[in-house]
């Protein structure tokens, strides 16, 4: 230890406690400044939404102002916005439920059974994400028009599923791979059928992973703009498109844009808080399950 060091010059060396304190201070300083980098845009957005119109984008910014919910009231009175918000909630919510219903069992089967050409199947599933969305948006448009899915909620749900399915399958496969197979075997020896073993033992053990992919899928679908722009016109317009509409060709309604954007964050925040306790474990992809 440094304190027991008798070499010349050791007096200048810091003892262990001081070093540890210093490390803690530097670490906290770094984390605080990083938090600032992450949180400042959110603060800026929220504060903009609480400023009266005209003041939102003033330069220099008004750091001190009287908050008002005027923008939110305006927003709530626009039936289009409420409609699009609810539309998005329903479509995105349904797509998350469906993508889990399809993707989780698929991942389980890929993890547990010997599937011929398993690697190829997995890469094929991933290939749905290999093209940039802009490259497939026109084919999507034509297919949707032919199948009468254009501007329908069902069409949008299918589109969201296609965006998220590969993510769910890949992440959940990795997660199931981390859950020892002996758990199902123990359940079968205990008298459960294979399906009961999956439902009562494996699914609960995979809960952190499921919640993680659910929240990520939700966010991906919730913020989707490009496909919504091309594949909807009136009936199935998602909330992102509505927010986008505040950016006009001549002017931008900053305070309304900020209020709508802040409102968009709320469902994600609620979802995140609700499943928070599973996320830490889930985002480590099952490593905690292993003993």
């Amino acid at each position: 230890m440094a304190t027991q060091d008798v070499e010349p010059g050791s007096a200048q060396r810091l003892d262990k406690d001081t070093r540890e304190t210093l490390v803690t201070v530097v670490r906290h300083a770094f984390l605080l400044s990083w938090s600032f980098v992450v949180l400042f845009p959110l603060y800026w957005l929220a504060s903009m939404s609480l400023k009266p119109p005209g003041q939102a984008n003033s330069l220099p910014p008004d750091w001190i102002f009287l908050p008002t919910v005027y923008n939110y009231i305006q927003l709530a009175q626009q039936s289009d916005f409420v409609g699009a918000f609810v539309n998005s909630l329903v479509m995105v919510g349904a797509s998350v439920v469906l993508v889990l219903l399809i993707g989780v069992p698929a991942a389980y089967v890929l993890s547990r059974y010997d599937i011929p050409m398993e690697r190829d199947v997995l890469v094929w599933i991933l290939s749905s994400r290999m093209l940039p969305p802009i490259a497939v948006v026109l084919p999507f448009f034509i297919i949707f028009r032919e199948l009468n899915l254009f501007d329908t909620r069902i069409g949008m749900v299918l589109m969201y599923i296609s965006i998220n399915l590969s993510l769910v399958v890949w992440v959940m496969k990795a997660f199931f791979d981390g859950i020892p197979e002996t758990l199902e075997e123990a359940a079968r020896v205990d008298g459960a059928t294979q399906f009961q073993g999956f439902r009562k033992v494996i699914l609960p053990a995979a809960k952190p992973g499921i919640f993680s992919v659910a929240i990520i899928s939700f966010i991906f679908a919730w913020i989707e703009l490009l496909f919504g722009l091309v594949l909807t016109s009136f009936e199935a317009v998602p909330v992102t498109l509505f927010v986008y509409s505040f950016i006009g060709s001549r002017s931008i309604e900053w305070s309304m844009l900020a209020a709508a954007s802040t409102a968009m964050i709320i469902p994600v925040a609620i979802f995140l808080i609700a499943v928070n306790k599973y996320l830490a474990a889930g985002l480590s992809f099952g490593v905690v399950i292993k003993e």
Partner: protein
Amino acid sequence: MARITIDDVTKRFGDGDDSVVAVDDVSLDIKDGEFVVFVGPSGSGKSTLMRIVAGLETQSEGDIEIGDAVVNQLGPRARDIAMVFQNYALYPNMTVEENMSFGLKMSTDMSDEEIEETVTSAAEMMDIDKLLDNRPGELSGGQQQRVALGRAIVRDPNVFLMDEPLSNLDAKLRAEMRTEINRLQNDLGVTTLYVTHDQTEAMTMGDRLVVLNYGELQQVGTPLECFYRPANQFVAGFLGSPSMNFYEGEVEGGTLRADGFDFDLTERMQTSAGDRGALVLGARPEDISLHDEPVTDHEFEAVVDVVEPMGSISYVYLQAVNQSHDQTFIVEIDGQRPISEGSRVYVEIPDEDIHLFDAASGETIHQRKLDSEAEIALEDGMQTVSSSSD
């Protein structure tokens, strides 16, 4: 409780030319209440054989009977077995109590009160009644092991299957649990199959050992029988720690010419050897003596390579002075006896402690002598086992 019959069971993994035979035509009778240990190195097929009995693998050929029924077509749930896994396989999302009651809920019609009562009494038996509300992640390895055992005994099954249950524990805990499992098995009297690669566990736990290698049955017998009367070179080398020393050599006129020394075969050995040209001589480290000066004319000179003091005993690794290869052999000596690396000693391999094996097949052709009392005890044990398993 039930007897188990394994009848000509073969298990192949894969198809056609790529297939691997994991279990090769094994037949075995395990009587009601017996504690049988499957032992062998990795890849010997011991776990596969147990998994076939459990119904977790399906055999390629042959029949499994539990009780008096052929269970080939039955899944694990219908076989009335309980299994303890190497990694315990406790359900991570359930408390200890839920882990233990899961099997009863799945496989019986017991009411919740009955289940609770049964679980509590099993938990008391395993001394885990204070842990019932904890989740597996909150328990130490030893506690998890006890819960896994508790989960097995609470079901009161026909058969216990234990797949290397102690291998994740530290040495001290392993010794404790070994005794505990022995006691449990004695108290409950449930037919038990136990898989291990650890020959100490095998020797100390089972009524009978089933020694497997490359999926083939090598020997079935009591631990002492397998130790003192090994059926072949593999069993002789596998049981006992450190392993038996083997010296291969050619027979010339009643003398075995091994690498570095000659050994005069006794008449009894020569009769056993018949007209075989090549033999393997086997002698256990604890049976060989080291002398500072030659005492008999049977001895040969060797150089001490390494000494491993273990406390009450030491293991001495030696090479014969005249040998041409680098291989060493091991001799166990008293821990207090001074011996230094590089010194020369005279090695005596007593005639009566020697095993001889056919060099080609590995089959035992000559067994060592035992004290007359031990011989009688061993014969009695062998008869008891064979008559009861018939």
